[in-house]
C-alpha cells in the first residue's frame, strides 16, 4: 500500500467534505469551460456568417497604369499588362489554392477543395441601354454567392439562360421569359434575383462560355473569386503564392471584414475570460477555506501520522494527493457543468448559435482544476506541518 492509496481511502471516508471542497474548483472550471465553449460557438457562428460575404480571395489581371509625362506636360496614362486572365491559368490557380489548404489542414484528399469562380465582364447595349453582362460558372458562382435568392423564376441551368439583378430587371423592364439578343445569340431570362445591395443588382448574369463566344473572348476571364473551404485557411499565403508563381495576375486576400468581426469576438472573449479568471480566483479561495477547515478537522490524524513517523514532506504529500483527487473530481464535474452552462446561455449571448460540447476542453478542465486545487492546498498543507504532535492530541 502506498501513501496515495492511503489518501484515497481517507478521501472515500470523507467524501462529502471532499465534494464540498471540489465545489469551489467546479465553479471555477465550469465558468472557464462554459465561457470557452460559448466563445467557440460564437466564433463558429461569426465564421459562418463571414462565409456568406463571399470570396476571401480575388484574382484580377495584373495591370499597371503609368502616368506618362514629358517635363510638366502630361502625355496621358499608359496601361501596361493584359486586361484579361487566360482561362488556362485556372488549373494552376486551383492547384496552388488546394495545395496550400491541404497543407494547412493536413488533408490527403485528392479532390477539389476551394470554390473557384471565374467571371467575364462585358459592357454592352440592350435596347439602347447600357448593360453590364457578367459571364459566370453556374455551379461555382452559386457556391460563392450563397446569399443569392431568386425572387422570380429559377436559377439558370443552361447555356442560353440568364439571371438578372433586381435593379437591372426594373430599369430595363426585363420579365421572365424575355429574350435578350447577344451579338446574334439569343438568351432567355429564367430568373430575377432578390435585391442584395451590391453591384449584383445592376448586372445580368449569363453562363461564361456563352458570353465568351458571343463577344469573341474565348478563353478569357476578367477576374476570379476564390472561396477557401475553411475559416482558418491561409488566404494571404495563397495570394502570395499565386502572385509569385503565376505571371500576369494579382491575387488579393479579402480579410478586412473577417478581421473586424473576429476582433469583436476576440474582445468579447477576453472580457469573458477575465470574468472566468475572477471565478477561478474565487474558486481557489473557496478551496483554501475548505482545506483549512480540513486541516483543522484532521489535526488528530496529522498528529497520529507524525507520531508514527511521517515527515513534514509526507504530510504535505498527503494534502497534495488529496488536492489532486479534488482537482480530478472538480475537473470532471466542472467540464460537465460548464458545457451544460454553455448549452443554456450560449444561444442567449450569440443569437441562433448552436452550442456543441468541445472534447478538447475536457483535459483543459482537468489540468486547470487540479492546478487550482494544488495551489489552494499549498498553504493549508504547510500549516498542517506546523502543528505540534503533542498539541494535536491535547486539542482533542
Amino acid at each position: 500500500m502506498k501513501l496515495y492509496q492511503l489518501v484515497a481511502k481517507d478521501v472515500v471516508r470523507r467524501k462529502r467534505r471532499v465534494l464540498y471542497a471540489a465545489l469551489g474548483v467546479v465553479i471555477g472550471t465550469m465558468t472557464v469551460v462554459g465561457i470557452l465553449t460559448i466563445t467557440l460557438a460564437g466564433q463558429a457562428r461569426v465564421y459562418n456568417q463571414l462565409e456568406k460575404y463571399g470570396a476571401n480571395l480575388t484574382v484580377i489581371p495584373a495591370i499597371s497604369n503609368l502616368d506618362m509625362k514629358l517635363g510638366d506636360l502630361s502625355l496621358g496614362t499608359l496601361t501596361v499588362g493584359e486586361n484579361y486572365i487566360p482561362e488556362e491559368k485556372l488549373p494552376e490557380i486551383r492547384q496552388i489554392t488546394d495545395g496550400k489548404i491541404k497543407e494547412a489542414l493536413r488533408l490527403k484528399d485528392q479532390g477539389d477543395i476551394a470554390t473557384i469562380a471565374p467571371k467575364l465582364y462585358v459592357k454592352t447595349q440592350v435596347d439602347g441601354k447600357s448593360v453590364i453582362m457578367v459571364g459566370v460558372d453556374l455551379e461555382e458562382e452559386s457556391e460563392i454567392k450563397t446569399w443569392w435568392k431568386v425572387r422570380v423564376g429559377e436559377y439558370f441551368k443552361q447555356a442560353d439562360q440568364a439571371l438578372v439583378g433586381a435593379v437591372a430587371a426594373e430599369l430595363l423592364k426585363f420579365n421572365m421569359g424575355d429574350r435578350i439578343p447577344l451579338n446574334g445569340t439569343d438568351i432567355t431570362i429564367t430568373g430575377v434575383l432578390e435585391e442584395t445591395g451590391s453591384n449584383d443588382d445592376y448586372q445580368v448574369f449569363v453562363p461564361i462560355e456563352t458570353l465568351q463566344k458571343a463577344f469573341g473572348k474565348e478563353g478569357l476571364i476578367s477576374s476570379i473569386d476564390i472561396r477557401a473551404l475553411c475559416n482558418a485557411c491561409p488566404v494571404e499565403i495563397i495570394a502570395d503564392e499565386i502572385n509569385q508563381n503565376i505571371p500576369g495576375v494579382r491575387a488579393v486576400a479579402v480579410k478586412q471584414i473577417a478581421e473586424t468581426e473576429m476582433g469583436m469576438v476576440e474582445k468579447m472573449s477576453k472580457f469573458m475570460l477575465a470574468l472566468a479568471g475572477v471565478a477561478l480566483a474565487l474558486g481557489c479561495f473557496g478551496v483554501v477555506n475548505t482545506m483549512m477547515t480540513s486541516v483543522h478537522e484532521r489535526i488528530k490524524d496529522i498528529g497520529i501520522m507524525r507520531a508514527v513517523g511521517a515527515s513534514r514532506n509526507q504530510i504535505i504529500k498527503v494534502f497534495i494527493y488529496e488536492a489532486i483527487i479534488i482537482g480530478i473530481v472538480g475537473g470532471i464535474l466542472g467540464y460537465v457543468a460548464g458545457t451544460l452552462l454553455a448549452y443554456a446561455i450560449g444561444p442567449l449571448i450569440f443569437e441562433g448559435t448552436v452550442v456543441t460540447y468541445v472534447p478538447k476542453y475536457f483535459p483543459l478542465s482537468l489540468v486547470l482544476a487540479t492546478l487550482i486545487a494544488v495551489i489552494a492546498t499549498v498553504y493549508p498543507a504547510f500549516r498542517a506541518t506546523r502543528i505540534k504532535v503533542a498539541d494535536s492530541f491535547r486539542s482533542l
Partner: protein
Amino acid sequence: MLEIKNVSKIYGEGITKVVALNDVSLWVNRGDFVAVMGPSGSGKSTFLNIIGGLDCLSSGEVILEGKRIDNLDENALVDIRRGEIAYVFQQYHLLPSLTALENVLLPLILCGMDKETKKASDILKRVGLEKRAGHKPSQLSGGEQQRVAIARALVNDPSLILADEPTGNMDRKTGREILSLFEQLNMEGHSIIMVTHNPEIAEHAGKIIVLQDGRIVSEIKQKERKQ
C-alpha cells in the same frame, strides 16, 4: 539507555505561567519497565511527550543511546520515531479509514517499506488479531484497538515503547491482557515507560516513579517494593 537530565517544561508566561515539569531527572536502562504515576495534571503525559520528542522542553537534556535528542531538528526526530521510539496512546489513535492491518502497516509505508505486508500481519497475529486484520477501528472493541496500536508500535522494532495510559479505557480483564502483552514485550528486551493511574498495573513495572506538581516525589524499584 535513556537519560533525562534536569528537564523542565513551562507553559505560558506571567500569570498564565504553568510549570508542567520541574527539574526532573531519570535514568532508564535497556530492558527497564518504568511506570509513571501521579495525579491528573502532575505532568505525566508532558513527561512522556518530551522523552519522545513530541513536545519541546524549556530546559534540561534528553539523551537516548548517548545522543541528545531534545535539540534535534525535525528530520532527525522523524528518524527516531521511525526506529527507536514508538508510542501507544490511551485513545489508541488509529486512523479510522484504514483497516487494522493497514494501521499496522502505516509506519512501514511512511518508511518506504510499503511492501512488508507480511511483517505487519505477523505482528498482528502476535497480538492475537489475525482474524480481525480487515476490520476498521470502528468495528473493533477497545481492547482490540489497543492491540492494533501496540502492533503498530512494534512494527518498526523500537527499543523504547512509550505508553500513555494504555489500559485507561478498558475493563479490568482487558487491561490485564494488554498489560501481559507489555510484559512479554519487556521480556523480549523492549524498554517500556508507561504512564498509569492504576497502582495494580504499576505493580508489574520494574520501577515506579511518582510525579507531583511536575516533580518526581518518589522513585521505587521492584526489589525495594518486595523488601
